[in-house]
């Protein structure tokens, strides 16, 4: 399986310079607007998109059919793709945390503030975002195996769009219902701290496991 993972990482390495340039621009933009979550979200979206790109390349060169002629079974083939997703999103999470730290903390110190250590960068939010994008990736992977990369990529974008609509729509509805942000914060703060960690981790893990099972079932019944 290591070979299958390496194959994807070597493939992505070919685009590393372009992705780094785009990300550098995003990070710079974040510094200018003093909003780290912009760069972090971009990184996590990019992580999802890179996984889809590796699948797209596999499709283009019929790699999976070829891989099955080697000492590789379908379980390994599917598992390797999930490992690639975890590695990519994990890498994006670490980069996101580092970027958030730099964007939020460093400018304050550069600006002469002596309280730079009291960062306002909410790393918990980044971790929750990571869980969210892992969940979105988990929804996308079985669709890729079932419908092909291009259709799945469209659905993936629709899911992201749907999430954005859900968040902003929810906030708007809350406002219309007379709930202010303060009220919402009070409700959210009433949730025990442990729950904050447990819910996204639980949802993400469940999504990963269900997704892996579904992908494997689809791949097993596929005519390559």
């Amino acid at each position: 399986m290591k070979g299958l993972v390496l194959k994807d990482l070597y493939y992505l390495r070919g685009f590393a310079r372009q992705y780094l340039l785009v990300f550098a621009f995003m990070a710079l933009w974040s510094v200018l607007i003093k909003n780290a979550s912009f760069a972090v979200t971009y990184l996590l979206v990019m992580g999802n998109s890179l996984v889809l790109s590796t699948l797209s390349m596999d499709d283009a060169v019929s790699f999976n059919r070829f891989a099955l002629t080697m000492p590789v079974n379908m379980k390994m083939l599917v598992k390797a793709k999930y490992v690639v997703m975890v590695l990519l999103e994990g890498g994006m999470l670490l980069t996101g945390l580092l970027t958030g730290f730099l964007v939020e903390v460093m400018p304050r110190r550069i600006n002469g503030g002596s309280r730079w250590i009291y960062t306002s960068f909410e790393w918990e939010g980044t971790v929750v975002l990571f869980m969210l994008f892992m969940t979105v990736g988990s929804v996308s992977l079985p669709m890729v195996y079932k419908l092909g990369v291009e259709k799945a990529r469209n659905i993936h974008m629709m899911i992201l769009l749907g999430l954005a609509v859900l968040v902003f729509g929810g906030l708007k509805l809350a406002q219309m219902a007379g709930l202010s942000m303060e009220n919402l914060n009070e409700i959210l703060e009433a949730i025990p701290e442990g729950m904050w960690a447990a819910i996204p981790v639980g949802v993400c893990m469940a999504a990963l496991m269900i997704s892996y099972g579904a992908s494997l079932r689809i791949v097993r019944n596929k005519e390559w």
Partner: protein
Amino acid sequence: MQNAVTVKNLTKRYEDFTLNDVSFQIPTGSVVGFVGENGAGKSTTILALLGIIPVDAGEMELLGHRIRKKRNASGRDDVSADESWREQIGVVFDECNFSTELKLKFISGIMKNIYRTWDENKFLDYLQRFELPLNKKVKELSKGMKMKLSIAVALSHDSRLLILDEATSGLDPIIRSEILDIFRGFIEDGEHTVFLSSHITSDIEKIADYVILIHKGRLLFMESKDELLYRYGIVRCAREQAELIPREIIVGREVNGFGVSVLIKDKDALMAGGFMDKARGVSESPFALDRVSIEDVLLYFVKAADETQGK
């Protein structure tokens, strides 16, 4: 003689195509050419043989390993959970299956983590022999170079059986000839086997020991190539002379404005039956008994099969 491949009554049904009751054996140490028109069922047979697609019926064995009809829990079609026997099979499809952005220098790193028997030095030797630069990306290679890369990969582990699905199609004659030389070298010790599917019959004629012909999902024959080329013949003669050819040796016929061309499967039987004298007796028209090419055999067999089906 042991068989590297055994296929018995292989049947695979699709909505618009059926691979029907195909059986053949490939002796170890031989080169077997698998010929047939596009869509005849060559690739389906190979995919079934490799356990990549489930089949409806039949038994298959590759290097002594039985291939299952249905997939097991790991999504694999072979009976054994151990995948290591696949180390001994090298497969080359009609396209290069490595991502276009991949540099050649990374391929060995990938493959040595897939094949336990991967031989990096052997791979580098092949790349040097084929003049494939390590620093180039796959997308920068020509079609011939890509095919050589795929062959280098297939030969750089402990492969005893090489399966090639239309690997030489689209290549120029010089590269095809180089590739055929590699295959000749591969089987030299008598323990390695090549199963080569192609619709380029001249390649098969150059290298194969046996020829298998498949048409519309049905196997028409498997014959020794030498037998085929020396025993079969084409009689070009007048219609009344063609009537003198014993029916049991006729494979197919083609009628044209000048007379009839008949593919026969036994030149000796024709001569022994006194055809020459009898033919001169019934007509003044000149006649000839020509040697056949694999292409002739393919065309006559296919035409005869179509006519039989049509009836």
